[in-house]
């Protein structure tokens, strides 16, 4: 058993961590863990052709948790001294209503995650500010070169370098290093006094070289400019229920909102989800198979281990239309007696673990994307979206198109202004009649919010046809 390298970076010994664990894992506590985290985030941003803002933030702390039955006691501290650990431990175990005292903790197995999905040296994650600056300057030039109607370009490059270590009362001491970066471009176009906006971005658990591969950063700039220019000529979007074709990639936000959140175990244990009693039942047409997969190398939603030290995996949520499983963390898997899927995630040491998605996508089907569009007489073709939201309990969800076109007589015609699409989670996928063979994962921009916590996620989708969904435009 080797010494875990993360222990040193937090200035702790194994004895100190075990001592604190013993203090919180008292008799009535089922499970306890310590989550140590140190995070450096950096951001450089540009507007008006000037790279004028740079920020850097350093945070470090520990979150301590004890669970007893359905109860969770949680405390956190930004100090890592023995005294602080003990104070937090005492708060966390209050929940178990147990006398203080120590319990022997199994000697933990020190280990590294079995996967290495983002083998990036620190040196590769840390990019000289001057390199970030020249990247942003080149983006500005490219977007303006794309079309002279581009009047402002705003771009930012953000990186995060997170070192985590988890010590659990079930005998694990494990650490991971989690780099993350994202490049975002927004363009404002202006013509005849009308202004429009277009955005594009991407990233992942990748090094700086990722943005240069195939001049990816310049493509991001052109895509943002293209969307802004396109929207200058957009007509009013239609209103009402109609067939909608979703393009591949980021439109997979449909899955995230319509079914992903509803299949998180906590809502189902509490029976507050519209999916609570639907395991084994049909919730989608038989062309739909949907998975949550945290093991794809370099993806924004991927992790070697979740924030409870469990290896991430690939979980089948819906198989040929039948609801097969929920995504779980330790607490909910134990209480529901269902498999642990490695989806216990938290925003930081300051937040509790919740079951969360990683990369959620639909597997490719057999239809030709062109044929899917040709099958629609009058409807909408939506290829890019802003955010979405869901009401877990009644299952109603929305997602808002930022680039969409009318389909008229089987052909993609005019671009339309942004519109929100609204549907019902347990029903919408039963209306998916065609699934393309062109599965695409998104570029790496998603951030999911739940109970005030944000975590990076991915989505993916092939081109699909939804026979009917309500489109929130202004033209009847």
């Amino acid at each position, binding site marked *: 058993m080797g010494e875990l390298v993360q222990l040193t970076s937090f200035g702790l010994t194994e004895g100190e961590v075990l001592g604190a664990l013993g203090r919180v894992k008292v008799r009535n506590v089922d499970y306890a863990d310590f989550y140590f985290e140190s995070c450096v985030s950096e951001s450089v941003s540009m507007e008006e052709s000037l790279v004028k*803002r740079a*920020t850097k933030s*350093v945070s470090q702390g520990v979150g301590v948790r004890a669970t007893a039955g*359905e109860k969770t006691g949680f*405390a956190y501290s930004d100090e890592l001294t023995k005294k602080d650990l003990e104070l937090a431990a005492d*708060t966390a175990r209050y929940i178990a209503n147990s006398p203080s005292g120590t319990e022997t903790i199994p000697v933990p197995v020190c280990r590294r995650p079995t996967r290495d999905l983002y083998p990036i040296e620190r040196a590769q994650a840390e990019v000289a500010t001057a390199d970030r600056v020249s990247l942003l300057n080149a983006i500005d030039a490219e977007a303006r070169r794309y079309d002279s109607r581009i009047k402002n370009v705003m771009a930012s490059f953000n990186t995060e370098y997170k070192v985590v270590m988890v010590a659990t009362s079930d005998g694990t001491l494990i650490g991971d290093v989690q780099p993350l970066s994202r490049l975002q471009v927004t363009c*404002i176009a202006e013509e005849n006094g009308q202004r429009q906006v277009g955005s594009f971005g991407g990233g992942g658990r990748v090094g700086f070289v990722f943005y240069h591969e195939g001049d990816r950063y310049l493509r991001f700039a052109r895509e943002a400019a293209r969307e802004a220019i396109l929207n200058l000529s957009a007509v009013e979007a239609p209103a009402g229920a109609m067939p909608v074709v979703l393009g591949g990639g980021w439109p997979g936000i449909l899955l995230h909102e319509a079914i992903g959140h509803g299949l998180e175990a906590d809502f189902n244990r509490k029976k507050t989800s519209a999916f609570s009693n639907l395991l084994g039942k049909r919730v989608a047409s038989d062309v739909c198979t949907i998975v949550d997969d945290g093991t794809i190398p370099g993806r924004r939603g991927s992790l070697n281990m979740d924030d409870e030290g469990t290896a991430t995996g690939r979980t089948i949520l819906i198989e040929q239309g039948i609801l097969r499983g929920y995504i779980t963390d330790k607490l909910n898997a134990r209480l529901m007696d269902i498999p642990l899927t490695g989806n216990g995630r938290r925003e930081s040491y300051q937040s509790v673990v919740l079951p969360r998605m990683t990369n959620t996508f639909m597997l490719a089907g057999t239809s030709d994307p062109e044929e899917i569009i040709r099958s629609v007489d009058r409807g909408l073709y939506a290829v890019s979206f*802003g955010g979405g939201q869901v009401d877990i309990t009644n299952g109603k969800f*929305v997602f808002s198109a930022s680039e969409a076109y009318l389909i008229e007589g089987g052909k993609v015609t005019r671009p339309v202004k942004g519109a929100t699409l609204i*549907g019902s989670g347990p029903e919408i996928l039963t209306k998916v009649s065609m699934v393309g063979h062109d599965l695409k994962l998104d570029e790496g921009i998603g951030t999911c919010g739940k109970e005030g916590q944000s975590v990076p996620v991915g989505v993916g989708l092939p081109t699909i046809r939804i026979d009917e969904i309500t489109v929130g435009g202004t033209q009847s």
Partner: protein
Amino acid sequence: MSADLERTRSWSGSEERRSFADLASDLLAKAKRSGATEADVLIADGETFSVQVRLGTVDRLTKAREKHLGLRVFVGKRSASTSTSDFTTDSLSQLVTETCALAKAVVEDQVSGLPAADQMAEERLDLDLYDSTRLNTEQQIELAKRVEAAAMSMDDRVTNSEGGDFDSSSGRVVLGNSHGFLGEYQSSSFSMSVSPIATDPETGAMQRDYWYDVQRKFAKLDSPEAVGLEAARRTVRKLGAKKVATQRVPVVFDAETAGSLMGNLCSAVSGYALYKGASFLAGQLGKSLAPEYVTVYDDGRVVGGLGSRPFDGEGLPTRKTTVVEGGVLKSYLLDTYSGRKLGLASTGNASRSVGENPSVGPTNFFLAPGAKTAQDIIKTVKEGLYVTDLIGFGINMVTGDYSRGAAGFWIEGGELAYPVEEITIAGNLKDMFAGIEMIGNDLKFRGRIASPTVKIAEMMVAGN
């Protein structure tokens, strides 16, 4: 200096709190020595305690103290910002060096810099933002249990719950800059909420809603029973909701959802969106935006207000700004930087989270109330929509195009006829503000932004 930092490390007691001012002064001096021409330091610390109860038993208990320090330096016209939660001497020294190096790596920005020295807040104003009431763990659990129990007991159709919550927090902000400004204030907040779930006995369909209150003073909170009953009432009335046909109708926003329209207005008058050309209100200062009975204020000095503060994120005095008067856009909301970009003075609206550059944020931002009750307003609608819930982010701030998911009630003959869901409402914010027909008398603050009930002449409702 190291002695002060040692005290800070110990992290308890009033002595250490006093030393935050010294810490700020030390860092400012150090920044100057490292080449900064100007600098400011923001230190925030606080403690939070939250309880969640579900179905009568404690579900989650969270307790924490935290602290954070943000440093912004200017090296001539270049600037950078950093932050840390590590207050050790070595770490802070490194932070100063890194921040100055970071500033030298970006380009000059002609309008960057601190506010003018003679503009800084001078009076030490007590806005009554702090309540020293400390609730112990058992008291707080009891309050969370009461709010949930009240919600669960109102109606047999309330069958489940996402939980009752009680949170309390308090904290202090210390801001110092190289002009010699040093200000600080304490604040506290107490909040309570419950999220009941109701089941339709016939169909088994579920609906969830919630209700809440939040106040700086514990004594001013609504009773747990009042909050719980309102939550249950709001939830049960949603049972049996259906879609409606796509049509253009008048739309009445209840006070909560009308507050979100004020939030949209607030974003549109933010100096940053305006100078970037990213707001549909760019160039509209002095022009008519809404009917003459529409008046909107941002008031940073409401005693005990949830958005009140004696000085803003740059140390400028807060004030009451008339944003819209007689329907005319009278003022944007600005900090020093966005003001300079637009050739205008700051309105004292610099909002600052530790480690970020200042941005513009509201203090207490609200639509001035009218004379009619919500009931009176609904009575004027023959057929239309009463909106109680909005979901999604379908707003294009550059054009004002608006399309969001909605739920609420269908109005027939001036009465709420039945609940509706899975619909959208769409229009353009410019037309929506111009189309405000009536304003209610029911203004109540439960946050920084508030509005009474608002009736808008017509919007597109999409459903079947």
